[in-house]
């Protein structure tokens, strides 16, 4: 079986949010919660300030804390490695949300269920790319089989120094970053779900 993963090149992410908009549209994600978003952070001071854009999503970890936490076995791993939530078995105890160090799981207020990124398994099963990968205008997102040496993701991972978000969590993520400016540690205390209190109403 394939070992699906994603590589995000922070050299070329421009923070346009095309990925997060595409994800919202693909899954009709309600306002205020996110399967995928882009975190902003800054380093340095004027006139030498730098802004970093860091796309974040569920990492579909090899050692997924959400999968181990779920008491109803609603969270399972598909044959290609995607960690998904079975809506029929979820009773919204929110242990997965409390266990995930990435804040990748949210409570869908409409469906009253826990939801998260699925690596668009309904698209990848048909041979297509995830919505966020297709939407990215700079091609900074690469998706594919990590174990296939001929795949673009495997080749780019081998050609670049890659890192993961929050390595101290010990979850062995399948989402990798090319992070030449060492920006990932700047969002080590953030999560996929962002605070929307400052947003305008409606």
């Amino acid at each position, binding site marked *: 079986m394939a070992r699906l993963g994603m590589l995000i090149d922070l050299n070329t992410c421009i923070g346009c949010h095309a990925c997060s908009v595409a994800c919202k549209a693909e899954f009709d994600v309600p306002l205020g919660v996110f399967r995928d978003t882009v975190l902003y952070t800054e380093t340095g001071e004027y006139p030498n300030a730098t802004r970093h854009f860091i796309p974040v999503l569920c990492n579909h970890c090899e050692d997924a*804390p959400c999968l*181990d*936490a*779920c*008491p*109803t*076995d*609603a969270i399972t791993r598909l044959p290609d490695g995607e960690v998904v939530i079975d809506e029929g*078995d*979820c*009773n*919204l*105890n*929110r*242990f997965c*949300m*409390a*266990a*995930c*160090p*990435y*804040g990748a799981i949210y*409570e869908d207020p409409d469906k*009253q*269920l826990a939801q998260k990124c699925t690596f668009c398994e309904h698209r990848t099963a048909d041979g297509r790319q995830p919505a966020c990968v297709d939407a990215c205008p700079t091609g900074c997102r690469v998706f594919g089989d990590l174990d296939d040496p001929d795949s673009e993701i495997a080749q780019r991972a081998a050609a670049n120094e890659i890192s993961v978000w929050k390595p101290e969590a010990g979850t062995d993520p399948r989402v990798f970053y090319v992070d030449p400016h060492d920006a990932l540690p700047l969002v080590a*205390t*953030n*999560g*996929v*779900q*962002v*605070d*929307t*209190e400052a947003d305008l109403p409606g």
Partner: protein
Amino acid sequence: MVEVVGGNLPLPAAPWGPLLAGYFVLVGLPSGLTMMTCWYRTRWPSGTVTVERHSTWISLFCLLLASGLLVADLGRPTRFFLMLTRFDNLGSPIAVGAKLIAVKAFLLIAALYLRRRGAHLGGRIDTALTWTLGITSVALAIYPVAVLSRTWLAPLASTSGAALIYLLTALLMGVAVHLMLQVYLAGQPMAESTYRGLRDITLVLLMVHGVALVFEALTVYGEPTLDTVAAELTGGPVAYGWLGLIAGVGLLLPVLGLTIVRFRRVALLGSAGSILIGTCVARYAIFAIGH
């Protein structure tokens, strides 16, 4: 949901709020009360049957109330049974805990029926019932820490002393309620040996609890990853609240009450009340501090 200030967390708001806080605090009482009742039974086999029956009813009521809090917190309460019927993920502490609660509730109901007035229960069955009640109570006293240690919500739950503190607070909660029942239901002045036995077990548990808290504090202040927790425990008026309630009200007051106060009823009731307050705050602190 509880709002979190500072954004120093994976989620803007903690996924577990007051209902789960109440559950983690309350679930200790039926465990401790059952363990205390089991101990009292073995120590004074001819002791007050009324106290034992009331203890069992209170344990069952509190267990069902705690379960009610857990079910009420679910986003889909009608699917709560999945935590009892699914055995595919016994690696989840909540899955194990839900089954423990069901087993404990069954055992308490069995105890009430088999030990009802006029019933003659065989020695082996009675012993087996006592032991299984005791073991499930110990498991229920500790399992909440296993749940919390898997989360980012409760950094204190991952420390070395958390399980011991949860066990000790459960025992102390049980002792406190048992003392109250002894005072109100015994029907006659307490025998000197009984008073001394209850007082001594309470003092021993309080001293062990105090030692556990001291070493837990040393763990917290020596661990750089727990700086947020240490700051909350030492910074400002809130810190005095935590320390005052846990150590002052929960430890010092009952120790003084049991060793100095001459009037036994006042000493026992006052100490029991203080112990309940201190242990509830200690359990809540492990759940809440750090997020």
